[in-house]
């Protein structure tokens, strides 16, 4: 994904009206159906072609706690988050006052009249809406009223923001799919809200959404669903998982979509297996067993699962088994904040397991890339014969993103060096761990290959090139050196960094994964304020040579990431010790999607004292 793919002309108009350039925050209680309402809002804007992001901030329980949904509209194609919000729907009595206090000056708030907040602030517009009455009027069923009330605020906003009624209704249709009764009910509720607003509020709000033409190709999707499609098109055949937020929706999307796409038409049977394991140790064990036996195997988890997978990860590395692990990172350590985003597992992933290891990592930034990275990881794992990790995060995985459509995987499926019975017939045998091709990668066979010389014995203990047991120091050293070489001399298999060189810039900025989006915008702001910078987006580790070159070409290099310790910056300092003093960490992690302001301030501060 390139930078600023969605740039569009600014829509700012006169008279202080802001068009397509503001943020809406909806504050509700979870488990009350507000997610559907928020999805409808987001989808409507998307359908109108507006560059839009939706960030769901939800608690780690099932019902009854505060949740916030933030939608940002933006005319310059930015997908980063910003600290402020301009429009507020305050629906949660517990947080309403605080939410209102944090509304940007000049903003607009839609609050339940019952909350009696009308007079709380003079510098914002506060619309008090009788949600209860409106819901009651359009929903005879008392049980459903709470749900329906959410759609009433969609209606009020639709009026104030100028959302196209048709698109709202289309969005509702999609949201409730086949359930026509639900569609009707919700459409009615939106109408009730809109009508109430039309007769009680000023005709137009200060914040308006306007259709942007030429966006018909874009897609809107949750990151984990994109990754599930990646697994399906990447040819994954055995997937083992254990439920954990924020990775579960990956497996659940797979369970939903695989039957339609990967059922053998002749027999109606599955060309894949999805197993809910008893825990993450077992999930990776299954993946390794399957990968060894010739399947394209994959698991998805989050931090605690990664910790539990450490021993098996070392086995996979040391015995050279293809495997893919998706880590949808959340805030750690320990249980941490399970419903908050982070890039805090980078160091753990890179060196997962005791002993010397080094696991390739991929860092997708958006859904289209997440799709492609899962495909690439499956291929790289097969070719490199090693566990490969896709380091996603909650922001990417569980939020809905607007993106370009998925690309069909460019090449054929890569299976790596696998010998068939015929090959063995010609060769007369093979040495599993012998580096005949000089690329560090040996040839493997899979069990069941019908040839008397096909078998080898895989073991997590020391072994020779012929896969026999060994406690010899020289065998061990040779093996370990080859494992290092194997990864480091085949970096072309991993997604390459994307570089944007700005001639004359002293400052270089590096980001990766979802840190990209705020960084893009922060760089523009910094450039406007007199600090131009070059940019490199890391898409995999170990670092490609271009990363070193980039650092070498700049006086000061800021590594932007979402954790406490600047983990990728540390990897970079280890990678280029002679340039380590140029590497500065702009690490920020409070569990919320990274904001433009955090990046901008982080760099500006350090530049100030540079």
């Amino acid at each position, binding site marked *: 994904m390139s930078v600023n793919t969605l740039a569009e002309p600014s829509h700012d108009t006169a008279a202080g009206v802001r068009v397509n350039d503001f943020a809406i925050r909806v504050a509700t209680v979870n488990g009350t159906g507000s997610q559907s309402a928020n999805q409808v809002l987001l989808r409507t804007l998307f359908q109108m072609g507006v560059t839009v992001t939706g960030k769901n901030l939800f608690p780690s329980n099932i019902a009854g706690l505060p949740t916030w949904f933030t939608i940002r509209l933006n005319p310059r194609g930015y997908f980063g988050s910003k600290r402020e919000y301009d429009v507020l729907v305050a629906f949660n009595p517990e947080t309403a006052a605080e939410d209102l206090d944090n509304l940007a000056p000049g903003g607009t708030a839609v609050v339940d009249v019952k909350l009696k907040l009308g007079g709380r602030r003079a510098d914002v517009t506060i619309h008090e809406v009788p949600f209860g009455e409106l819901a009651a009027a359009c929903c005879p069923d008392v049980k459903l009223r709470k749900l329906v009330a959410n759609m009433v605020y969609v209606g009020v906003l639709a009026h104030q923001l100028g959302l196209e009624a048709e698109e709202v209704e289309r969005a509702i249709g999609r949201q409730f799919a086949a359930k026509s009764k639900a569609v009707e009910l919700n459409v009615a509720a939106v109408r009730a809200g809109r009508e109430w607003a039309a007769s009680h509020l000023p005709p137009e709000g200060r914040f308006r959404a306007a259709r942007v033409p030429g966006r*018909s190709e*874009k*897609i*809107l999707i949750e990151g984990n669903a994109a990754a599930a*499609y990646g697994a*399906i*098109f990447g*040819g994954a*055949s*055995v997937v*083992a998982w254990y439920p954990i937020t924020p990775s579960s929706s990956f497996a659940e999307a797979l369970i939903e979509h695989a039957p339609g*796409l*990967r059922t*053998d038409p002749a*027999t109606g049977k*599955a060309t894949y*297996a999805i*197993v809910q*394991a*008893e825990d993450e*140790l*077992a*999930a*990776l*064990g*299954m*993946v*390794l*067993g*399957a*990968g*060894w*036996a*010739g*399947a*394209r195997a994959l698991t998805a988890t989050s931090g605690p699962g990664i910790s539990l997978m450490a*021993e*098996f990860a070392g*086995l996979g590395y040391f015995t050279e088994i293809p495997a893919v692990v998706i880590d949808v990172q959340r805030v750690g350590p320990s249980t941490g904040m399970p419903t908050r985003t982070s890039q805090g597992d980078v160091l753990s992933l890179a060196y997962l397991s005791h002993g010397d290891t080094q696991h390739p990592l991929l860092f997708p930034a958006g859904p289209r890339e997440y799709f492609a990275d899962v495909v690439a990881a499956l291929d790289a794992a097969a070719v490199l014969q090693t566990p490969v990790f896709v380091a996603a995060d909650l922001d990417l995985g569980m939020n809905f993103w607007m993106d370009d*459509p*998925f690309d*069909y995987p460019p090449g*054929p*499926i890569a299976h790596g060096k696998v010998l068939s019975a015929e090959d063995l017939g010609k060769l007369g045998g093979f040495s599993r761990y012998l580096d005949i091709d000089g690329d560090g990668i040996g040839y493997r*066979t*899979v*069990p*069941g*290959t*019908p040839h*008397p010389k*096909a*078998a*080898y*014995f*895989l*073991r*997590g203990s020391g072994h020779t090139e012929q896969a*026999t*047991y060994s406690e010899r120091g020289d065998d061990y050293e040779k093996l370990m050196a080859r494992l290092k070489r194997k990864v480091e001399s085949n970096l072309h298999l991993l997604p390459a960094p994307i570089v944007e060189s700005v001639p004359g810039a002293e400052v270089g900025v590096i980001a990766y994964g979802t840190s990209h989006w705020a960084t893009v915008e922060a760089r523009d702001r910094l450039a406007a304020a007199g600090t131009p910078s070059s940019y490199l987006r890391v898409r995999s580790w170990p670092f490609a040579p271009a990363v070193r070159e980039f650092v070498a070409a700049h006086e000061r290099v800021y590594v932007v990431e979402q954790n406490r310790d600047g983990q990728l910056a540390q990897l970079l300092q280890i990678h280029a010790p002679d340039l380590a003093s140029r590497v500065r960490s702009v690490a920020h992690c409070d569990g919320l999607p990274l904001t433009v302001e955090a990046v901008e301030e982080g760099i500006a501060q350090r530049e100030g004292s540079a």
Partner: protein
Amino acid sequence: MASTPEAGPKVNRIGLPIAEYKGGKSTLCGGCGHDVITNALVRACYEVGLEPERVAKFSGIGCSSKTPAYFLNRAHGFNGVHGRMPSVVTGAALANKGLVCVGVSGDGDTASIGMGQFIHLVRRNVPVVYVVENNGVYGLTKGQFSATADVGSRLKTGVLNDLPAVDLCGLGIELGCSFVARSFAGDVKQLTEILKAALAHRGTAFVDVISPCVTFNNHPGSTKSYDYAKDHEAPVHSIEFIPFFEHPMIEQVPGEVIEVEMYDGSKVRFRPVEAEYDPRDRHGAWHHLSEANAKGEILTGILFLDPAKPDFDSLVNLADTPLAQLADAQLRPPREALDAINASLR
């Protein structure tokens, strides 16, 4: 049977001599029960005429877990990490439903660190012959008690075990494991028949074998020694395995004999020693076992058997071609499918 002197074949049904079922040289202590089991496995595979290349061998870590290197050199092997063999087998069995999976574990590997995975493997009825070489100790780490050590058993150092033993067979029966057997490395004949029956089973065939550790747990005071096991073994029946490709010598099944047909058409005939022991009766099996344990007897035989229980591969509804052998066209949907997805996301 293929091994009877009359038939005296140098090769088995598929034309292979027994040497083709052997493995590397054992590095275990001379006299270790595990080596006996290795030999029984070789013989069982040979006698049922298994293609060695169809077999996949699995193990965890321990002396017992080393043994897959000592049989079936022509089969792939996966000697993984301690206690986690079940998950590895599960993955491999899904990847290639054509494999005959044979796992060898120890009592430490299965009943201590591996307990959770073992139970979940049994629950899924993953198709595997799962042998526990049970010596009541951690041999490879020099003889500490494992979770199958009996209350009152003593180490050579005099240390007493005061925790109750986990009975893996009892556990298997409780969990509805579809094939639960116990044998003893000192009773090779029974063991070999059990292993042949296990190879003919589809689902988890669990075989707990008392396998004395001559170095750390074969002294007086141990309840897992050769002597103790010999004195306390109580077979519930004698077992005759009749492979699907052989005609039984006696066509007519005598009244007291129970015959069970296995998945592949082979038959197992049980002649009860314990009166009325019926291996198809789960309640009876649990009851007998529990009483025997209380008396300090080691009940051996195929304690429980349910050949009809669906195995994991069939529950998962796997394609006929093993997943590992699918063509690219079956692994990756066509371009149009992705176009349709993109369109649906607009």
